[in-house]
């Protein structure tokens, strides 16, 4: 008797093999889903974040930060950095402007939180530590990446040193 297609056994074996392959694919897709969550916050913004932190920290080191002033309006926060050459950092919900250069957020689901954290601490041997963080709010995504903008400065006190001891939003 001639065969005209698959037998039930052949079909079953094929289905089992295809199922195994699909299960493996499913595992790959689940891994990619995790990555997709992390990349929802646009990579352009990651690059801008790195560039901004690098520019500001380089200025702190090269121009010797001696102090800063923080003022808050309804829709923006202004930092005035007292260095050899004074520079301004303006934080708004959608963008940050530093020394005249604008860093606008490209992710539609991200914004800067105007409730910053700031701390000034005195250390031994006349050193002091200044830290401030500009939080980045990202809707609906839990990223493992570092999104917030954290700034640090370790300095030696002198007659011109002038920092607010605390700041609350």
């Amino acid at each position, binding site marked *: 008797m001639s065969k*005209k297609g698959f037998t039930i056994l052949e079909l079953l*074996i094929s289905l089992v*093999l295809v199922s195994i392959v699909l299960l493996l694919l499913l595992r*790959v897709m689940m891994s990619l889903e995790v990555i997709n969550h992390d990349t929802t916050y646009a990579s352009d913004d990651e690059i801008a*974040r790195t560039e901004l*932190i690098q520019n500001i*920290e380089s200025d702190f080191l090269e121009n010797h930060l001696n102090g800063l002033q923080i003022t808050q309006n309804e829709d923006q926060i202004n930092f005035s950095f007292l260095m050899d050459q004074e520079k301004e950092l303006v934080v708004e919900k959608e963008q940050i402007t530093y020394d005249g250069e604008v860093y606008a957020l490209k992710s539609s689901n991200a914004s800067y939180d105007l409730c910053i954290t700031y701390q000034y601490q005195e250390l*031994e041997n006349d050193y002091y530590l200044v830290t401030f963080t500009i939080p980045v709010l990202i809707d609906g995504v839990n990223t493992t990446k570092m999104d917030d903008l954290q*700034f640090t400065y370790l300095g030696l006190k002198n007659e011109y040193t002038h920092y607010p001891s605390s700041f609350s939003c």
Partner: protein
Amino acid sequence: MKKGFALLETIIVITFVSVSLLLLYGTFTSLVQNSKRNILYDDVSHIYQLYYFKEYLEMVGLNEMSTKEIRLLSCDDFSTSSCSTLTEEFGITQFYLVPMGNRGEQENDAMYSYLSTLPHDQDYDYWLVGEFLEEDTYHFASIGVMHDE
């Protein structure tokens, strides 16, 4: 006369497709791993924090330390209470002095996985490696240290 596929033919094709998909899976897995690595290693703010931490520790004897093995440091190794203030403020949970070129042997450990990515920088004698805890996730960063003879 047969008009459909034989079982053998079907199995050969499925095996071929499976091998191809498994190769793809391997490629994707390594991409996923690399992406996770990029997220957790050498964040710019951690590098600056570690730079300031190193600057401060150098004033209290970091450059005089020497080791041939990877050495887990603690603030008790330095005669300053500000060390603890800095680790707390920066979120540094552990910090190590790693001789240049020493990558350790415990491959499954997160820190040793990080060490395997560090280049050999001839300008420095050691890496100061910091482990940072950020929202239940460990991140790593490093900075070069010169040894004073």
